[in-house]
Each structure stands twice: as C-alpha cells, then as structure tokens.
C-alpha cells in the first residue's frame, strides 16, 4: 500500500452484473481517488444502485474485479467489506425499525470499539446531525426524512474511509437538502464519498466531477458544468426537469 495521494481508493475493472440476460452493470471501469467527492447520475434503471451493491458485497459480480485500497475485494461478503471501511446508505431506507434511533446509531458505532467510545460517537453524531429531538423514538415511527438522517448517522458513526450514499436527499425538503450538502462537504475533508443524486442544484453544490451511468455503462465522466451541457447526457435525461 502506498501513501500516494492520487492512489485510487476504489477501482473496478470490467465489472459486470447481469440479471438473467440484462446487464445491470456492464463492463464498468471506475476509479476514485482518495479524498474525492463524486456524484453518480443517470436515469432510473441505469444501474447506479446495482453498482453500489456490488461495491459493498451485497451482490456478487458476474465478472470483473473490485479493488479497495489496492486489495482485491471481489467476492468478499458484505461484513468483510464493511470492516475494511466502506459504509453505505442504500436507496431504500435500511434501518432497524423496531429499535430506537439511538440504538440504531449505537449498533453502528460500537462495532469496532468499546461501549464507552461507542456512546461518545453516538452523542457526537446526534449533535452533528441534530437528531436529539427524536433519538429516543422507534425508527419505524419516524418520518421518511428522519429515517434518512438516522441512516446517514449510522454510516458516519462507523467512521468509514469510503462513504456511498444512494439518493440521500430523497424525501427531504429544500432546507434539509442544503444541510445534507453542507454535511457532505464537511465529511469530505477527511472521507472519500460517492453520492447518487438526481437533484442538480444539490450536485452543483457539492461535486466537481460527475460520472454519468446509462444502461449499465459509464456514459461520461467530466466536471459538472461540462456534463450538464453535453448533448448526449441531455438526450439520455430527455424530459427530466432536473437537467433542463
């Protein structure tokens, strides 16, 4: 392992996932340097969520390779990949409904530490994300936006080296979106992040480089302004208000 700043933290080589005959992910070569904050965009069904699930071992690739910090992690189970330092918020809320928000955070925080440090981490996240007003409630009884915050909190509480967020601002109001964007920029000072988003305002706020997925492949990878002006990207998104 080298310390070179431009060494890729995560890299995929000709990564393929097919469901039946459909290539949800199609020979994707993706590289992300340490410290980047990257946005993934693309129409529904482009394969973004599938790509995230491959990176975190939730599904196994049909072929191809995944390297994390120089190590081949292809085919590792999701808990092993999580231990190496990848944290994910899936697109669908993925929390412990029957537990309180605090217990949710606590389960995330205590994984690699003792009870006391875990408690401190939980309090820190509660503070940072302003969860205090509902931290004692059952997550199953929370509003959608609050559940999103709890899940983001769980990801952060683990102190991962790479954070993957699949549509984190879905179901949030404008103010919450701005808060999320600010939070991501702050987290990015010491964590590498990939975000799947549809909201262009949100993307402009946080990212410089954007990767566009289309039909399982990477269609473009360029600075956000370039991508938004790209006729092919606009064509893919045709009819979508976010780009217009």
């Amino acid at each position: 392992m080298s310390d070179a700043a431009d060494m890729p933290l995560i890299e995929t080589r000709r990564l393929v996932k097919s469901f039946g005959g459909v290539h949800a992910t199609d020979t994707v070569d993706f590289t992300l340097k340490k410290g980047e904050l990257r946005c993934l965009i693309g129409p529904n069904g482009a394969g973004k969520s599938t790509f995230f699930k491959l990176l975190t071992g939730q599904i196994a690739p049909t072929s191809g390779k995944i390297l994390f910090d120089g190590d081949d992690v292809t085919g590792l189970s999701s808990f092993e990949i999580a231990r190496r330092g990848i944290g994910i918020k899936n697109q669908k809320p993925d929390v412990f409904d029957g537990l309180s928000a605090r217990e949710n955070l606590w389960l995330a925080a205590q994984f690699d530490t003792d009870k006391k440090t875990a408690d401190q981490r939980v309090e820190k996240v509660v503070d940072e994300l302003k969860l205090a007003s509902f931290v004692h409630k059952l997550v199953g009884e929370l509003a959608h936006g609050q559940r999103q915050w709890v899940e983001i909190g769980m990801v952060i509480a683990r102190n991962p080296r790479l954070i993957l967020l699949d549509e984190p601002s879905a179901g949030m109001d404008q103010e919450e979106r701005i808060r999320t964007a600010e939070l991501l920029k702050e987290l990015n000072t010491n964590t590498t992040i990939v975000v799947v988003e549809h909201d262009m305002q949100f993307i402009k706020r946080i990212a410089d480089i954007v990767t566009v997925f289309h039909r399982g492949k990477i269609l473009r990878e360029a600075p956000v302004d370039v991508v938004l002006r790209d006729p092919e990207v606009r064509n893919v998104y045709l009819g979508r208000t976010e780009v217009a």
Partner: protein
Amino acid sequence: MIKFLQKLQSPSSESPGAVWWAFIVIAAVILALLPQTLGLAQLLDLSVVLVLALLALSMSFLWGYIGILSFGQTAFFGAGGYVYAVAAMNFGTTTLPFFLGILLPMLLAAVLGYFMVYGKLSDIYFSVMTLVITLIMNKAMRATSGSQYVVGDVRLNGQNGIPGVPPLQVPWNPEITLFIDHVYYLAAALLILVYIGLRLLLTTPFGRVMIGIRENEQRIELLGYDARRYKLLAFILSGALAGLSGTMFAIWGNFVAPEMFGLDRAAEVIIWVIVGGKATLIGPIVGVGIIQYLTTWLGMQGVGQVTLVLGVILIVFVLAFKEGLVPTLGNLLLRLLGVRPGGQAEPGSDNEKGPDV
C-alpha cells in the same frame, strides 16, 4: 403502575430499571414462600412448570431476540435428560452429570448449528431442519429397546425409557439427595437466574446485535458484523438452556423417555411461546403455567382429546391474539389507563419488538 406496564411493553435494550428489579425481587419472594402454603403434590406440579419454563425460554429467546424459529429445542431437552440419566447411573455421582447434561446438548447445538448456519440454510429451512433433527432423535431413541443398546451399565430401553434416574446429590455431601421441595427451590432459582441473565444479555453489545439481526440482517452485515457467528452463538446458548431444562426434568421425574424428543412436546413448546407471547421473556413462562395447568385440569375433567383442545387454543391465539397473552393484556391495561402503549407494534405488523420482561 403505568410506568411498570410501559416497562413491560418497552422494546428497549437499555438497562432494566428499578421497577424491573423490584418485579424480580417480588417474584423471587413469592416463589420462595410458596412451599409454606403448598402441599408436596402441588409443589411437584409447580416445579415442572418452572423446569419447562426454561425450555420455553430457550425457544423464545432464539425466536424473540434474533428471529430464528427452532422447532428442535426438544432435541436438546431430550439430550440433556438422557445424558444426565445415563451419566448419573454410570458414575454414581450427580454433579458432573448435571453439567454434562448442559454441556453435551450445547455441543450438539454447536455442531448442528454450524452446519445449518454456515450451510446458508434460509430461515424456513433452518426451522424445518430443527424439526427433522428432533424427529430423528425420537426415532433413534425408540429403536434402542434391544439389550445391545447399553451405555456403560445403563440400558436405554427404547420406548420404555429409563426409570430410576438418581436424584441430585448435594455436591459437597453426596449422602444428601435433593427432595421434592429442594428440587423446587433449585428450579425456581435457575429460572430466575436465567431470566435475569437473558434480560441483561440485551444490554450487552452481543444482545443488541442479536436484536439488530432480527430487525434487519442485511444492515447488520453492512455495519461489519458477521451475522452468522451471532446466530450460531445464540443457537448454542439456546441448546445449553434446553439441555439444562431436560436435565432438571430428568431430576424432577426420576425418569427419561423418548417422549422428551416427541412431536407432542415440540408442539407444546410452540404453543407455550405463542400463547404467552414471544416478544417478552415473561410471556412464555406464563404460557407454560397456563397450558400445563390447563392440561392437568382437562385430564381430571375426563376430556380425552387434550391435544385437540390445545390445538384449538393455538389457532385462536395465532388468529386473535397474535402478540400473545402478556403483551395483549399489557396493552389492554395501558389503554384502560388512558396511555398509549409505548413501542407497541403497529396493527398488522408481525410484532417484531424487543423482548423486555
């Protein structure tokens, strides 16, 4: 009162409060005083309820905490009983056999659990497998009537079982053996200890991860926990508990027989847990008491089809009181007192709430 009931309902993994400990102390005092008022026959009846409550807990803990439904707790129950019986009759002492009656079922659970958990059996196949294991052990034990089936000096006796299982001796003075009232006290103490232990387990990281697995196994894995390891450990612990129950059962009745592994018993365990409520730890204990006394009473009334009646009760509970008696009554009381039950399952949900009491 309201607070107490809310405590009963709460799915919390926080440390149990003073109210809970007061409840324990009161229960312990009552159990300690009962022999003053009960005759030996009644004490004998009550003892077996306490012993079987350990078996019920071994199942409800697995089901309620981590979400694994094991029909096979009777396999470990029977194993515990037979191990104690055979070892005690061979050794002439009972202290080591008592612990073997816990240890060997635990090992059995470890081996079987390993193959089932790491063999990636889905939850439903896991349940079916546990049932199959019980049936196999029952069949195997029934087939041991021939005189060639001896372990040491003890004939296994097939269907007839092994009579004359030695009573438990006081470890430091083997001259003294436990009499009916002593067995009662031992059973009561064990039940209270196991109950406290299981409740406190919830406050440990291990316990919380178990609840997490029940709630969302995928999320647990994404946080870096190896869910299979936790499932295996929980299964081993439940095997040990069932073994303890079986050992105590053999001591209580001075007798073991293949019925300990039987389908009837396996079904009974499910009925106890469902009637009492799997989401709590107290529920299954109450369930054992009710069903056990009901069975005896029906027998005395000359009702021949006791199993049929139990079956009907099971169906009624599954359909009408899904959560089981203890949570249902608790919520009802809370409602009468005008309080919204805290942490109550939403209507229609499967009541996957954390067991608290």
